[in-house]
């Protein structure tokens, strides 16, 4: 049953833009980032709504892998190979050079032709012509950044992906405004997916990126909803007495792991979406929560305090074999795995507070990646390059990012309320 809720407390908006973009501030990059120059792209028409070359340059710079040449330091602005003097770019220290030109095409389309050069070898590495229009130039730019990132690093770029997150504002005593927002991976183009006076949490993407599941308290008790992003249509799928929380989509997309306490205390269940069939997979009087799937869909990792304090366990579903995964420290919770299943990011408590840590499941080694004390909700970019998480800055909830090796860091300061509960999308088609 599709349940459309249009009650006064609640506003479903599919295209309302809230001008509160998150801005990225890089606080630490790699020790020797590769210098790259992205020259402003040629364009002879009226001023465009977006500066494509700047978005490409900002994307690459935010990754921490590169140091981007400032435009005012550029001696020339070549649009094509015959205008490139490699010696100038070599002397100014650039290893790679990106040039391009935008041209009007039929039906109001715009084509972007972009070239990547290895400055030292004076050789073209990549060239591509991309079609777009004046309304999707940011998409064109993120796509170009993805290609360049992959050409230079060998890692698939994730700039074209999206993030969702929750903002919360306290408007007065017992008066709050919660919003579920979706934005580009760089925080631009935020859109409100759901607005409510009651808490929203635990947003999570379906594997194909077309749907979100989340927990909303709008009906006075926590319920799990599934919402289609394209249409805004949604369905309330679980609303038992007690907790209905922590939804996690299976890699195959056909099932949701979730937490219900209808039998007295929090247990992990698997809901088969097509049939509505519910299977309980944990049985313990302790807290079992925060399930996440292994990439093969055969195991669930979850937080449990069955050993006294919260630690992360792995449950192999076919055999029901249970294994404790984390041992370092007295509090490890809310695990998220990289797509290859090798690294587990989590919230880890030590003497100085709650940090984002990553454990190599092959070697067991645990690295604490952050030093701030109220870090939570880690979510990993689909290419495994960056963990986005929620932290506090100046008493306010903000998002921040750290690379899995801890070398790259950035924050996404905001001006309005608290930002929390980020969830990074999969690669989108």
């Amino acid at each position: 049953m599709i349940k459309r809720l249009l009650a006064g407390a609640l506003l479903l908006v599919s295209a309302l833009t809230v001008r509160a973009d998150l801005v990225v501030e890089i606080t630490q990059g790699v020790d020797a980032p590769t210098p790259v120059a992205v020259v402003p792209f040629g364009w002879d028409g009226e001023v465009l709504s977006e500066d494509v070359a700047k978005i490409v340059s900002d994307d690459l710079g935010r990754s921490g892998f590169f140091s981007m040449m400032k435009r005012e330091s550029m001696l020339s602005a070549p649009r094509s190979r015959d205008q490139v003097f490699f010696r100038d770019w070599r002397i100014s220290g650039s290893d790679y050079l990106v040039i391009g030109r935008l041209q009007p095409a039929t039906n109001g389309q715009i084509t972007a032709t972009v070239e990547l050069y290895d400055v030292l070898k004076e050789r073209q590495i990549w060239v591509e012509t991309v079609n777009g229009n004046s309304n999707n130039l940011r998409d064109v730019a993120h796509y170009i950044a993805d290609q360049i990132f992959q050409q230079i690093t060998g890692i698939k770029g994730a700039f074209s992906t999206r993030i969702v997150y929750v903002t919360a504002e306290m408007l007065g005593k017992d008066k709050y405004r919660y919003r579920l927002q979706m934005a580009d991976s760089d925080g631009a183009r935020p859109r409100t997916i759901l607005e409510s006076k009651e808490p929203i949490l635990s947003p999570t993407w379906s594997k194909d990126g077309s749907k979100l599941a989340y927990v909303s308290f709008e009906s006075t008790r926590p319920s799990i909803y599934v919402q289609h992003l394209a249409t805004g249509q949604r369905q309330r799928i679980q609303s038992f007495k007690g907790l209905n929380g922590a939804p996690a989509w299976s890699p195959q997309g056909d099932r949701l792991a979730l937490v219900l306490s209808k039998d007295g205390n929090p247990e992990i269940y698997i809901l088969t979406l097509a049939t509505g069939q519910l299977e309980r997979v944990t049985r313990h009087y302790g807290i079992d929560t925060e399930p996440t799937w292994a990439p093969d869909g055969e195991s669930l990792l979850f937080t449990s305090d069955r050993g006294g304090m919260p630690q992360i366990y792995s449950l192999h579903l076919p055999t029901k074999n249970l294994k404790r995964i984390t041992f370092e420290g007295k509090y490890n919770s809310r695990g998220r795995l990289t797509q290859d299943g090798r690294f587990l990011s989590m919230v880890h408590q030590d003497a100085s507070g709650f940090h984002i840590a990553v454990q190599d499941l092959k070697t067991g080694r645990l690295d604490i990646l952050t030093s701030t004390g109220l870090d939570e909700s880690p979510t990993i970019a689909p290419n495994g390059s960056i963990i986005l998480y929620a932290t506090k800055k100046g008493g306010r909830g903000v998002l921040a990012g750290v690379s899995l090796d801890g070398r790259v860091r950035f924050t996404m300061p905001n001006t309005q309320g608290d930002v929390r509960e980020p969830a990074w999308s999969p690669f989108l088609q």
Partner: protein
Amino acid sequence: MRVSSAAKAISLALSVVWVVGCSSPSTLTEDGDLSSSANGSATTYGAGSGAGMSGSGSGSGMGGSVDVANLQTVFYFDFDTSSVRNDSIADLEAHAQYLATHPQASVRLEGHADERGTREYNMALGERRAQAVERFLAVNGVNGSQVESISFGEEKPAFMGSGEDSLSQNRRVELKYVAR
């Protein structure tokens, strides 16, 4: 002492409950059936018993001297624990006695956690705290159908801020009398 404070509590609470009852979505139909447009969570009591509560005249229960609202309604917890603290016991017992002697009254227990730790784990912790209070009430004679527990985890802090003061104020269960 407890008995008398509870007795004092009773009479004013009656009026509290009645007032709430007026604005509730629960309605009593003419043939005595209780129909509810709410979420249907408290449906275990008979149709007849509701009549006296929400259907009687406006003067009911106004003769007493005390207010249940004078009892503590927010109960605090130590970090990462869900044990009812000693400083909560006296007032919780008073609430329990009131509820036990007034089967038409009901409460909603809202469990909360401070901001430390992960959100869904804190959701479970808030529920555990609400359940601890629910058990305390049950042990003291309150029928389970009079109590509904809900957890807000760390989502609705009483105070913003990360100092120990606001943290300890946020680890709480709020007891609220509700109409049903």
